């Protein structure tokens, strides 16, 4: 429109310009539009990089109250608590119940955020030095704990763990927890994340399918293969795994390695030993055993390309006998599981000459809760975490989320568990002290990814066990060269 007015005002001169524009204008607009568009895809990524400035301009509100025996951290009445909860398989109803209880007891109101976008919501806040007070940092968009730790964003939780327990003030909180469950939250020998949920990993099967076929729980790898073979004859897959997420098949491979070679074999991997994989007999035996399943065609057809929900649903339809997963499986599959399915959990079967017995399981904790080092209301956050580790709150959790916590005997006897969860409890009892837990997954995200990729190739039959060992060792060696990785060690 502008050019029309110009034309009227300036007569011949205006006419001249319109003429010129007639040749090039459309072109020009198009090109500048195109160039502008280039910036769109790139920009969205670049601006993701750019932070919101940041700095440490703490507007330190006064959140420190007076400490006493019943109030060891000095929670201040009337202060505010900012809680962010990953709203995944366990929902966030349990946290709302906690917060209500917390407000009742301490008069501290909380802002509750239940979300799946942990990274998207929290990364800018961490960068700007304005994080929430307590976070359930979990799910697919979890901010890796190792990354947060290296940035000095996590509070050392020793103070909470050494404070008196709510249920029995003569004990430290630390001593009321299931042994070993704090390990997963350790970075450089400090507990910086509280993995709150007690989890076991292993194999699952349908009790109904077993009964129908007269099978018994296989204790050795040979028995396991026999069942797979019989299943194949009946056109049922032997083992299903969640191929799109090789995390799950790594559970099987690594469990076999740990059970065959004992804790030493496991620690060699966590401690980035130059002979963690190549040169380790246990690793060789473990990966070859898994590959036998692939080679003999005992995998559920197509399982390598399925997501976790897809392959678990197929397993629920009796398309496969076994599936690898953790104790959350039952809760995750609630709507998919037939009523008479009899979901049952079992430890990985053992190879000949295995150091650990069949009963041994990978057990530990998941769902990391963190307190940011720069949280505004540290006293209330610490108290909140202390109360999470009380029997009352642990029971609240079991009720709302259908899962166990790391608090020893943390569920009131009145609460009845689902059959699958109940079977995990029994397996844990049978295992006793025979538990193990890898830590490299929490310590070294990059190495974990590399091993997952190799496993995916192995399951798709594109590489052989020898090549898998080489690639896994290469990932370990690469991680060992990273100067940051020297400080993580376990004995």
């Amino acid at each position: 429109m502008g050019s029309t007015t110009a034309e009227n005002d300036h007569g011949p001169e205006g006419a001249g310009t319109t003429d010129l524009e007639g040749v090039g204008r459309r072109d020009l607009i198009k090109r500048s539009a195109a160039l502008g568009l280039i910036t769109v895809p790139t920009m969205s990524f670049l601006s993701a990089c750019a932070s919101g400035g940041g700095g440490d301009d703490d507007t330190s509100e006064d959140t420190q109250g007076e400490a006493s025996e019943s109030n060891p951290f000095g929670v201040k009445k009337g202060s505010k608590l900012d809680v962010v909860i990953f709203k995944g398989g366990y929902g966030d109803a349990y946290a709302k119940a906690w917060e209500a209880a917390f407000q009742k007891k301490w008069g501290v109101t909380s802002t509750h955020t239940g979300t799946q976008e942990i990274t998207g919501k929290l990364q800018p806040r961490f960068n700007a030095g304005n994080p929430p007070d307590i976070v359930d940092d979990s799910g697919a968009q979890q901010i890796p704990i190792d990354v947060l730790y290296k940035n000095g964003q996590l509070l050392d939780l020793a103070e909470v763990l050494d404070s008196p327990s709510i249920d029995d003030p003569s004990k430290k909180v630390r001593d009321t927890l299931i042994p070993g469950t704090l390990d997963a939250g350790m970075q450089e020998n400090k507990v910086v994340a509280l993995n709150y949920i007690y989890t076991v990993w292993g194999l699952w099967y349908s009790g109904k399918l077993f009964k129908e076929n007269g099978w018994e729980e296989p204790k050795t790898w040979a028995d396991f293969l026999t069942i797979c073979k019989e299943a194949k004859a009946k056109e049922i897959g032997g083992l299903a795994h969640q191929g799109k997420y090789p995390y799950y098949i790594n559970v099987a491979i690594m469990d076999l390695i740990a059970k065959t070679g004992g804790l030493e074999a496991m620690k060699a991997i966590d401690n980035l030993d130059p002979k963690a994989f190549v040169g380790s007999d246990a690793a060789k035996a473990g990966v070859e055993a898994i590959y036998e399943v692939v080679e003999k065609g005992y995998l559920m057809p197509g399982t390598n390309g399925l997501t976790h929900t897809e392959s678990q649903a197929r397993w629920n339809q009796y398309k496969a006998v076994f599936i690898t997963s953790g104790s959350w499986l039952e809760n995750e599959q609630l709507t998919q599981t037939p009523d008479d399915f009899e979901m049952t959990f079992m430890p990985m079967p053992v190879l000949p000459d295995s150091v650990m017995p069949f009963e041994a399981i990978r057990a530990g904790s998941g769902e990391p809760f963190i307190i940011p080092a720069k949280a505004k209301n540290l006293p209330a956050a610490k108290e909140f975490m202390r109360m999470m580790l009380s029997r009352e709150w642990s029971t609240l959790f079991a009720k709302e989320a259908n899962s166990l916590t790391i608090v020893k005997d943390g569920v009131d006897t009145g609460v009845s568990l689902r059959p699958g969860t109940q079977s995990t409890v029994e397996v844990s009892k049978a295992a006793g002290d025979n538990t193990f837990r890898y830590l490299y997954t929490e310590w070294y995200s990059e190495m974990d990814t590399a091993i997952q990729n190799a496993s995916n190739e192995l399951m798709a039959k594109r590489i052989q066990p020898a090549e898998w060992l080489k690639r896994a060792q290469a990932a370990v060696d690469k991680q060992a060269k990273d100067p940051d990785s020297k400080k993580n060690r376990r004995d």
Partner: protein
Amino acid sequence: MRKGQNRFVAGFLLVPVALYLIFVIWPYIQTFGYSLTDWKGQSQTFSFIGLDNYTALFEDDIFLQAIWHNILFLVFIPVITILLALFFAFMLNAGGRGRAGGVSGVAGSGFYKIVYFFPQVLSLAILAVLFGAVYRSDSGGMLNGFLMRLGLVDENSPVEWLNEPNYVLWALILVVVWHGVGFYLVLFSAAMQAIPRDIYEAALIDGAGRAHTFFRITLPLLWDSVQTAWVYLGIAAMDMFILVSTMTAGEYGGGPDHHSEVMATVMMRNFLLYGRSGYACAMGVVMLLLTLIVSVVMLRATRRERVEF
């Protein structure tokens, strides 16, 4: 121009320019700044490490492989999409035959135009879910189920489309092409309808066939639209983040074993998962440069004399 007018124009320009500088240019500069540091992405502590990130980038096999995949996309996506869109658009607008010598599309072309446009209505996220079901790696997948019925695929070893290094890129290209053809068909149709009928009629009277009419008349007169399409598709091919990250295996996609990796997925993984944000920023800068180069080259290469009508 009069003085007041100047001020008037400047007043209008000032705000948008300022916004552009703050929200577009400044992040670019910040990103470049971060790319020279070892920033880990979750706090404001980092140290300056010069061009280390960039030198590391050229030894990063995964990133180099990702660039290569982007280049493959850049070659195949625009070519296939544009050729198909041109062909369909021509058939819909000038491909009809007979009926008193007039120029028209094939029978029912109005209906086809609407149907062809359907895929464009879907967002990429929905598309990823949809094609996830098509490519599903067991007998429940549409493609596998179909091939099994025909007896081409064994029920016990279905084709794992997105888990096969040799297929995964093609599977992705197919999705983008399927999505894009309808839009460019409409774009080209609009341009074709602007071409005067008498030109076609004259050609028909001279005895030109379909192919002749297309190459001698339609295509030259459409060149501007083709060029625009080319640049748009080129940009889409340099990105590909949404499809790759949702459809393929691995954190932020790129699987199996990096065979479908694109620059954006490698960048996101380094940025958010590994906490190597400074390094990821260096990747971002490289992406920006490459995309700029590609656009400039595409515009230059397709430059032609305008045909006036």
